[in-house]
Each structure stands twice: as structure tokens, then as C-alpha cells.
């Protein structure tokens, strides 16, 4: 059932077993998993069923470092940011969960094995087809194509599978509407989460609409699922009892914000003397058995371990024939490079090719990259968020190192790589791109001094407050977060149904 919060009588009080704040990938997955169960579920969504400019403006905030599009990088209506996500899915690798102390990347209190069954269930929710992310053999069997046999052990081929992309608010709307135990309040904004005097349990949620209506929800269990920036904002703004913000006893809420640096445009180019050497599925997204797949190159686990490197997803794009309408002086050398590669022989009938390379880079969690509150307030009276984020030198060096590894692999294979990242240890502003992935601001950790939530997403010290979504990621590898968000939400729902989370 959908209920428009604007139509409720002023001061309405709603009792519920489980309140889920936010109807995005995490919130909708939780509600679906809990539907038709024995407990009453209240799903709370700030927006309606379509984009509304005034509601979307509630996301506006300030940038403290890199100028970051806070309002444009996420969507505030039913379905959340899945209303514009790209659909790239793959699970985190075991090495991503293990942590790397030398880089101050913490371990998750979970392993890939723990999450594996939930990833497999997320597969169907994200409409992905086969669960083949790392083994080329199944794709080879389906497509009769072999991956590039690059020499050395520094790079490996891995696969993303594309969600259609699943618009959770559309695909799963009927499931939510028809569930007898789920009520969804649209156009309803939580403006404060209120705990008891000891701040050991959540008692009430205060809600407001843009039209001025105010009402209250009293949940037995509360799940915050509003995204990597808004989860922190709402906790920090809920300071009536805990003055530093809910769950912020260790000053961790909002800190360790993570984003994947993507760098605008290409970070490298690959020259090959033979246009047939790069298989189709590195440069396109073929549909195979109802799944759309894309092969990428990543540094191998062994290389990352011995180089203290960061995970990087390197995507190849078919660019052009060498020297075809070169636009810059630098491109004038391309035909010469291709010809140089032909000094080893090869099929003279084939045309050389220049490919572009784009990247997504694993970030190093930094306490200085953080969400804080500003003095400025939004239309509901809530302090706006300020995002202070700048990628670090460590990340830039890791990217340069990984591009060097790519150059070695392709060079030994008969190609050549041009690294487009400029020399220097600091990022130039025009080199910084991002994936619109907001992670880490309520990180998971078994020790309350190290994490805001425990391994099950429960806020340390607050028995009935859970957090879902990418804000709980202690680290994030180089891959898009949605698939892991959904897997974690399924796991949380299972634990709720099993009674272990209240």
C-alpha cells in the first residue's frame, strides 16, 4: 500500500514493527524480503513515484574539496538512485574483504564466503543471469571466444555483468504495493531519529513533508537506508540526545567517505598492430543467454599483494584506427608506433588499432574525506551536508603503477600502451572523475572504536538501529557498489526474519 505523507492528519502517530528509511536498492530489497512475513513493515520515502525538483533539492549541499555534484549524483524518489544507475555489477573479491594493513585498508568483519549466498540471491534481483564473474571458461563456452592471453601475472581478466539496469522502483513496485504487511509512505521525510534518554534504543522518528505536515513513526526496529551521504547526515542531525550525533561516540559517522576515482576520459591508450587481437567482449557488451557482459582487466591478487597496490578496473574502448584524423600533435606519432610494433612481423593485411582505456580505482579510506553538516539548512530545516573529498597521493601512485603493469603486459604481447596520466604526485582537478558511488561513512567494524555498525549492520550501542547500504562498507575494491548493497540487504533481512536482529 502506498500512502502519501502529505495527506496524513497533522501529528499522526504510526506504530510499526520495522521502519525502513529510504526506498532505494537497499530499502526496497529489505521490504521485498520482509514482505508477507509476520511483521508489520513501514517503508519511508522522501520522494514520490517520479522526480520532483523541490524534493531533489533536499540533496543540495556544499563541497569542501573537490566540487562534487551532491544533488545530481543521486535520486530522491521511489527506487532511489537505481532510477539512473548504469547497472554494472560484480561482487567484491576475497582480497577486498581481507583488508590490507600496509595501506590502512581495514578488513571487513565478513568474508566473501559469508556473503557468497547473498550475492547469488542478489543475482536474480539485479536481473543478471549467470553468476560468472571471474572464470572465463563459461563465457568462452557460450561465445566461442578466448580472453586475451597477456603474458605475466600482473593483470587478469574479470567480468562485469550488466543489470538491464533494474529500476527497483518500477520492477519491484507491485511487490511492495501488494504486500499485505508493507505500507509505504511517500513524500515523507525523516528529519530526526530520536532515541531514548540513554540512547540505547530508537523510540521515534520525526517526519515532515515539504508542505509542512509533521507526523511520527514509532518503530520497534529501525533501518536507515538512505545512501552513503544521507545516512551520515541524518545520524549527525539526530543530536537531541547524543550531541555529536547518533552512533557517533567514536567520531566515525561521516568519516572515511569513499568514491571510485574514474578520471574523466581515458587514462591510457593501447596500440595494437592487429585489430583482431582484442576480443569483442572487451570493447562491447554482448548479450549472452539473457545476460549482458563486459570483460575488464584488473591487477591480479598476487600483483596487488606484492606491490601494495590498489584494485583498479581497466575498461577498454574501441577508439579508432591509428592516425585517423589525428587531433593533436601527440596523435601524429600513432602510425609510427603501430609501424614499430610491426617490426615483429604479423599480418600485414590487418589494420592497427588504437584503443582507449578508462579506469575505476579503489580508494584508500581516509578520515579526512568526510560528510559533515553545514550551518545552512534545507527546506525542511535540516542542516545541509558538506562533502569533503579529495583522492589521495596513494591512489594516484597506485593508478600509475597499475597502468605501468598494463604497459608491461601489452608491450610483451606485441602492443604498446600510452599513459595519459600526467607526471606528478598530486591529482590535478581536471584529472579527477568519480563514479557517483558514496561509501564508507558509517563503516562496519567489530570494535565500536573502529566502526559505526557491527558485522550485521547494527549501530554499536543502539540495539534497534540498523544501517543498510554502501555507507557500511569499510573498503570497496574497484567495483560498483549496488550489487553488494543488495546482497547485504538480503542478509540483513534474513537475520531479521531469523530473529537475530530484533
Amino acid at each position, binding site marked *: 500500500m502506498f500512502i502519501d505523507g502529505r495527506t496524513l492528519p497533522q501529528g499522526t502517530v504510526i506504530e510499526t514493527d520495522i521502519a525502513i528509511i529510504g526506498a532505494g536498492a537497499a530499502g526496497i530489497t529489505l521490504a521485498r524480503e520482509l514482505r508477507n512475513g509476520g511483521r508489520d513493515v513501514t517503508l519511508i520515502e522522501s520522494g514520490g513515484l517520479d522526480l520532483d525538483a523541490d524534493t531533489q533539492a533536499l540533496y543540495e549541499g556544499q563541497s569542501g574539496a573537490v566540487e562534487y555534484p551532491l544533488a545530481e549524483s543521486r535520486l530522491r524518489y521511489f527506487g532511489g538512485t537505481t532510477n539512473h544507475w548504469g547497472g554494472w555489477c560484480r561482487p567484491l573479491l576475497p582480497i577486498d574483504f581481507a583488508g590490507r594493513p600496509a595501506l590502512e585498508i581495514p578488513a571487513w568483519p565478513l568474508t566473501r564466503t559469508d556473503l557468497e549466498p547473498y550475492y547469488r540471491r542478489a543475482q536474480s534481483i539485479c536481473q543478471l543471469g549467470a553468476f560468472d564473474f571471474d572464470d572465463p571458461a563459461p563465457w568462452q563456452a557460450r561465445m566461442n571466444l578466448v580472453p586475451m592471453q597477456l*603474458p*605475466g601475472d600482473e593483470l587478469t581478466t574479470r567480468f562485469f555483468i550488466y543489470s538491464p539496469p533494474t529500476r527497483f522502483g518500477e520492477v519491484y513496485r507491485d511487490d511492495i504495493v501488494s504486500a499485505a504487511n508493507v505500507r509505504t509512505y511517500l513524500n515523507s521525510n525523516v528529519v530526526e531519529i530520536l532515541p531514548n534518554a540513554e540512547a540505547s534504543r530508537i523510540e521515534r522518528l520525526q517526519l515532515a513533508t515539504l508542505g509542512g505536515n509533521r507526523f511520527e513513526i514509532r518503530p520497534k526496529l529501525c533501518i536507515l537506508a538512505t545512501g552513503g551521504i544521507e545516512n551520515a547526515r541524518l545520524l549527525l542531525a539526530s543530536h537531541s540526545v547524543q550531541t555529536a550525533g547518533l552512533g557517533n561516540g567514536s567520531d566515525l559517522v561521516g568519516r572515511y567517505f569513499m568514491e571510485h576515482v574514474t578520471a574523466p576520459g581515458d587514462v591510457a591508450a593501447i*596500440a595494437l598492430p592487429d585489430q583482431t587481437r582484442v576480443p569483442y567482449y572487451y570493447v562491447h557488451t554482448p548479450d549472452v543467454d539473457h545476460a549482458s557482459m563486459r570483460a575488464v582487466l584488473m591487477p591480479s591478487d598476487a600483483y596487488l599483494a606484492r606491490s601494495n597496490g590498489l584494485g583498479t578496473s581497466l575498461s577498454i574502448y574501441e577508439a579508432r584506427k591509428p592516425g585517423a584524423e589525428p587531433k593533436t600533435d*601527440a596523435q*601524429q*606519432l600513432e*602510425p*609510427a*608506433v603501430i*609501424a*614499430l610494433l*610491426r*617490426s*615483429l*612481423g604479423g599480418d600485414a593485411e590487418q589494420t592497427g588499432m588504437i584503443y582507449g582505456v578508462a579506469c575505476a580505482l579503489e580508494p584508500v579510506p581516509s578520515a579526512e574525506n568526510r560528510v559533515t553538516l553545514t550551518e545552512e539548512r534545507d527546506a525542511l530545516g535540516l542542516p545541509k551536508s558538506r562533502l569533503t573529498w579529495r583522492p589521495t597521493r596513494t591512489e594516484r601512485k597506485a593508478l600509475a603503477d597499475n597502468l*605501468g603493469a598494463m*604497459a*608491461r*603486459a601489452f*608491450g*610483451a604481447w606485441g602492443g*604498446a*600502451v*600510452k*599513459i*595519459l596520466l600526467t607526471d606528478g604526485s598530486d591529482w590535478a582537478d581536471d584529472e579527477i572523475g568519480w563514479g557517483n558511488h558514496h561509501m564508507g561513512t558509517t563503516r562496519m567494524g567489530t570494535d565500536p572504536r573502529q566502526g559505526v555498525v557491527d558485522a550485521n549492520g547494527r549501530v554499536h550501542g543502539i540495539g534497534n538501529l540498523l544501517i543498510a547500504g554502501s555507507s557500511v562498507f569499510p573498503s570497496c575494491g574497484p567495483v560498483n557498489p549496488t550489487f553488494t548493497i543488495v546482497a547485504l540487504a538480503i542478509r540483513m533481512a534474513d537475520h531479521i526474519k531469523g530473529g537475530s536482529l530484533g
Partner: protein
Amino acid sequence: MTLNRRRLLAGAAMLMLWPGSVRAAPPTQSEAMLDLLPDRAGAARLGAQWVAQEHTEPREILESLQRRLRWSADADTDTLRHNLANAIAEDFHSGTVVAVQGWQIARTQAELCALAYFAAAGRV
């Protein structure tokens, strides 16, 4: 004194005994190496860039290429090409890589390009 075949052979034998004297190497040596390049002019452009970075000299380049390509007077093009492939692979394996306007190429490739540049300039 007229140049005859016997004198040429004697000169070549001396050079084999004294490989440092590559400036006076028979033209067939650099030509054989340059024959590996399908586009000498393009290679020379790359070579010009690299030489400007490295300030290297023809003699050093020839000596190095002799070593890297396992040059011998009786090596045919196929053998040289095979040796070139091995040298490039070894360079990338060992990280002996140079950058020319961002292009990461094996040092052996860069030296071949430098040779093309020096040849075009009449310096070998």
C-alpha cells in the same frame, strides 16, 4: 690505393675483434637492423623524441643493439626479428621500459628508433 674485396674482409675481421669501433662498422650492420623497421621515417620521428630525452650517441646505440639483438654477421632477418622479439619481451619483463610522449616502449625498440633517427641524419 684501391679498395678491393680482400681489404674489406680484413677490415671487417678487425672490427669483429674490436667491437667498440662501431662507428666504423660496415653499413650492412645498421642496415640489417633498420630493415626490421617497416616505417623508418616514423621510427626516426619516435627516435628523435627519445634521443632528445636521453642525449644518447650513435655509438652507444649501435653497441647496445649489437648486444640486445645478438648481432652476428651471418644473422639473417628472421633471426634478427626473433632476437628482437626476445629482447622486447625481456625488456618488458625486467621493466626496461622508456616513455616517448607517454608511449611505453621497450628500450630495445627505442634504440632501434634512435638508430633510424641517426641514420636519417647521416650519423651512422
